[in-house]
């Protein structure tokens, strides 16, 4: 039991949307995932929230008003009146207009945004929103099943109080929407691991896309070939992320966990197992930075559910039995093996030679070195908070951590209830105010004492 508080956002309605016949993106995978989370007993360790719904104002923090206005108004009934806009906003085959489109966007975006706010307020250490992570959406247009880019909106919220945010993308597709949004800034580093070549969607993500102007060297791309397996993936993921953390020193991380990089995905062509995929989440978690975990692609719903349920378990440090809980309503979906970790069927040879991967990692290293040399105001004026906290944690790992977690546990139940309200009634309600301030002071004192230790 790590002492991490994990906030989990799930709207019971988010799975009940449908992109249309034959469309590979199935929001219902979110309901299946939640059912597994529930029946694996993970809810016990989660702060579960029915998330906020993002409004026009929230979405236009990134997107153009014209585009969001269109999303709000368009529906299958009136779509013929918008033929001109459909082309303009790239709402063609990949991104159809379906019933409830705007509600869907507002649910997943709201959840990501709320996750960011909670992290900013230290209400949790990890925020999970499996319905988010729609990384292709652009400022002015939809793209690749993504309409509103909840990731960009969440990162924008985090940037209010975080000098540097790291974005990691393990979807099989390149995280082009996020990269493009932050292509010119050094305050967000985007790192994407994806299949590249042969015009695989979206066609960007070459290793030479490294950013521009102040953002030069702050976009990291790791193009991979089809058929990559767990060991090859780890061979690239770990050194790259380690180097990124070392050179960039982010104060928060956003992790997009697209599950289309799993083997057997309807659209993907990698050969990762759920364990291999989960290892990336686990590895990222270990840095102990505020972490926003998002979903993304994933087009074989049963595998998506397996993967994300397993990763939820990893985030709350719970060992999960391999057998799928028999009482989930979606039990039949996991036939015939009914296992959380089905055997990986490699449909494709691993096209990534060792040398190729080594060359890529070296390329990334070389660019990251430039990050350190690049004179950046941001890097200097920031107190070394993130780092020192991380070091503390490492130092006092065995006992102190347990200590804190125990304390958290005791406080939490009462604390949690007032926690929300304390922000709300700062002036009026003195009673709550005092309690909350005392709790915060106690926590701060604990941290300071531990530092001294």
């Amino acid at each position, binding site marked *: 039991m790590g002492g991490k508080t*994990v906030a989990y956002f799930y709207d019971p309605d988010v*799975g*009940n*949307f*449908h992109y*249309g*016949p*034959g469309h590979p993106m199935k929001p*219902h995978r979110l309901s*299946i995932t939640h*059912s597994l989370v*529930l*029946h694996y007993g993970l809810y*016990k*360790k*989660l*702060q*579960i*929230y*029915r*998330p*906020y719904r993002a409004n026009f104002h929230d979405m236009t923090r*990134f997107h153009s008003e014209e585009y969001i206005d269109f999303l709000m108004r368009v529906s*299958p009934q009136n779509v013929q009146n918008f033929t001109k806009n459909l082309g303009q906003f790239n709402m063609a085959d990949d991104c159809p207009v*379906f*019933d409830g489109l705007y509600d869907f966007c507002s649910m997943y975006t*709201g959840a990501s945004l*709320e996750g960011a*706010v*909670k992290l*900013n307020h*230290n209400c949790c250490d990890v925020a999970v929103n499996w319905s988010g992570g729609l990384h292709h959406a652009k*400022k*002015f247009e939809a793209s690749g099943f993504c309409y509103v880019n909840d990731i960009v909106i969440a990162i924008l*919220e985090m940037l*209010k*109080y975080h*000098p540097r945010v790291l974005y990691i993308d393990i979807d099989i597709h*390149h995280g082009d929407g996020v*990269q*493009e*949004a932050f*292509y*010119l800034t050094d*305050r967000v580093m985007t790192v994407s691991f994806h299949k590249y*070549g042969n015009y695989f969607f979206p*066609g*960007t993500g070459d290793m030479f*896309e490294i950013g521009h102007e102040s953002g030069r060297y702050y976009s990291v791309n790791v193009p991979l070939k089809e058929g990559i397996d767990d060991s090859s993936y780890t061979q690239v993921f770990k050194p790259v992320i380690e180097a990124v953390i070392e050179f960039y020193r982010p104060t928060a991380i956003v992790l997009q966990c697209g599950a289309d990089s799993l083997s057997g995905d309807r659209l993907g062509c990698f050969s990762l197992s759920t364990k291999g995929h989960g290892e990336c989440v686990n590895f990222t978690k270990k840095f102990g930075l505020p972490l926003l975990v998002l979903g993304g692609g994933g087009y074989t719903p049963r595998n998506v559910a397996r993967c994300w349920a397993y990763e939820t378990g990893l985030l709350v440090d719970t060992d999960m039995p391999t057998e799928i809980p028999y009482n989930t309503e979606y039990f039949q979906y996991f036939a015939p093996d009914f296992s959380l970790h089905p055997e990986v069927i490699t449909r494709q040879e691993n*096209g*990534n*030679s060792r040398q*190729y991967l080594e060359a890529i990692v070296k390329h990334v290293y070389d660019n990251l070195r430039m990050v350190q040399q690049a004179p950046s105001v941001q890097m200097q004026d*920031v107190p070394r908070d993130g780092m020192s906290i991380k070091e503390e944690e490492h130092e006092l790992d065995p006992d102190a951590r347990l200590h804190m977690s125990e304390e958290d*546990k005791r406080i939490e*139940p009462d604390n*949690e*209830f007032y926690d929300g*309200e304390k*922000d709300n009634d700062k002036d009026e309600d003195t009673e709550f105010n005092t309690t909350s301030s005392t709790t915060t002071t106690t926590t701060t004192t604990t941290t300071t004492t531990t530092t001294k230790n």
Partner: protein
Amino acid sequence: MTLDQDKVVKGDNGGEADCDTPSESQPSSTPSSSSDSSSVSIPHSSVLVLGSPKNSEGTVIEEVMTAVVGKKQSVRGQAFRAVNGVYVSYLCKDDNIFYHPGGMPMFDFLKVVLDIHHVDSVYIESKHADQPFLVCSILKFRKSKRDTLMVNIKWFYRPSEVPETVYQRLAQDRNTENNNKSLVTDDPVIKSRELFISDATDTYPVSVLRGLCRVDHYSDIHSVRDFNPEDNSFFYILQYDPQTKELTSITRGEIRVGPSYQAELPEYRGNVVVDERPEVCAEWEEQRWVPGASLDTDLLMYLRAARSMAAFAGLCDGGSTTDGCNAASRDDTTINALEMLHNSDYDHGKALQALVKCPVPDGIEKKWSEDERKRFKKGLRKYGKDFFQIRKNLLPHKKTGELVSFYYLWKKTPAAASYFSHNCHSSKFLRQIRTPRAPLTTSSVSEKDNDSDDSDYKDQQDYCCLHCYTTSSSDWYQIGKDKRLLCYECHVHFKRSKEISTRHWVARQSRANILDIMEECPTPDRWTQDARTARYSASPAPKNVRQENVLQVNEAVMSPEVEAD
């Protein structure tokens, strides 16, 4: 053997036979050297040891024979198999061309490093002998079950291979977009070099391979101006989808820079203390569960109690124990119990009391009447999974979301299974399997085959190529609808580039006239007859020219054996 005496290699065309070998020097290469190499021609090479000699890098070389339809002689070659069992390249012995898969990882990587944007491609024989070679890129080699070395390829389409209407529409679009100004593609040579990339793949025996070529990619029609129409080079701009029969621009994404694309960053206010940050979580959220508020054991007991209540309620409602079990095991029951506990501030007693009033939320059974189910199934049959249409036309009082959630829970039930088994034989549910192109018959009208073709040219000596006017050729071919006769060389040129008309076309000229012109033309007869005869003896005809190139290149290597012979 007599036929071989007619073989002619046209000096100016010889170079194109193989883009890899230094062909410029070829016409000047001496007859003597050619005759040397001739002695290693195919019949003798059988003395080479067959088997799998290992070279120093651990790559295994396998001798491969590939049978060719309609020919006695097999195509010989060597396959190079890497340590991991993957075939990395194939060497065709007849023309000594190395074929590599274009998609080798390291190779792609180098391409990126060296900023090479072309695709290495190959020609393969078309099943219609009178049509140009087909162009494709090699994906990989593999051994078939019958131990034939197969090549897996991805097609490029020539304009003639896409439906005429489609191509014409493209031409029109290009003209209108360009306001009818002159375009690069107005040049017939350039025009004939355009290809369309596709995702369609096929597998053939390696014997269909006919040499290498180069395909460049250009992002638009204007940048094609940079294209150099040298031999064996092509370009493509668009992608062709053989299934939808559409030409589409290639989705080659780009990261765009400008205020329309980047996000506007908020000001960094790191000095604001957490408590003073203005965003208010509580206004936004609706917490459904607090971890650790209830002890695990208590929770377990509570859930058991809740489920028992649900089971009993279900039993009373439905009348059977299975109904009870179903009610207890529904996700909704658990969720409902947990929410109740949360709403009762984790006071188990209070929560149980509340649960007594409502132990089970309404499930599918209650929410969906028999009639509604029937309508749903009808809708599914009629509209497929277009839940919006089903709702609109058949179940207007429900929400689309309800239909979706019903569908996914119902899908795996026995009732649904019977529904699907009823419908599965309607083929529209099955994806159409991509029909591969008809298998190639490696055909080149060889001497024997074309005997029957046309009575006009009974006597071979009277044949005359309508392109270069030669009367001597190893082979004669007819191309196009009007069955124009071409010599071997011109035919190869045509097959590759689909151009015949680089020179004056004199189809209607009299024989005498043609012969007159012939005198002025560079006659290939400079090449000594005996050299050619020796060289090509008993080898499959259409390969001759390339083989010749190769033999010259390989002379140095081969000569000891030649001497031995």
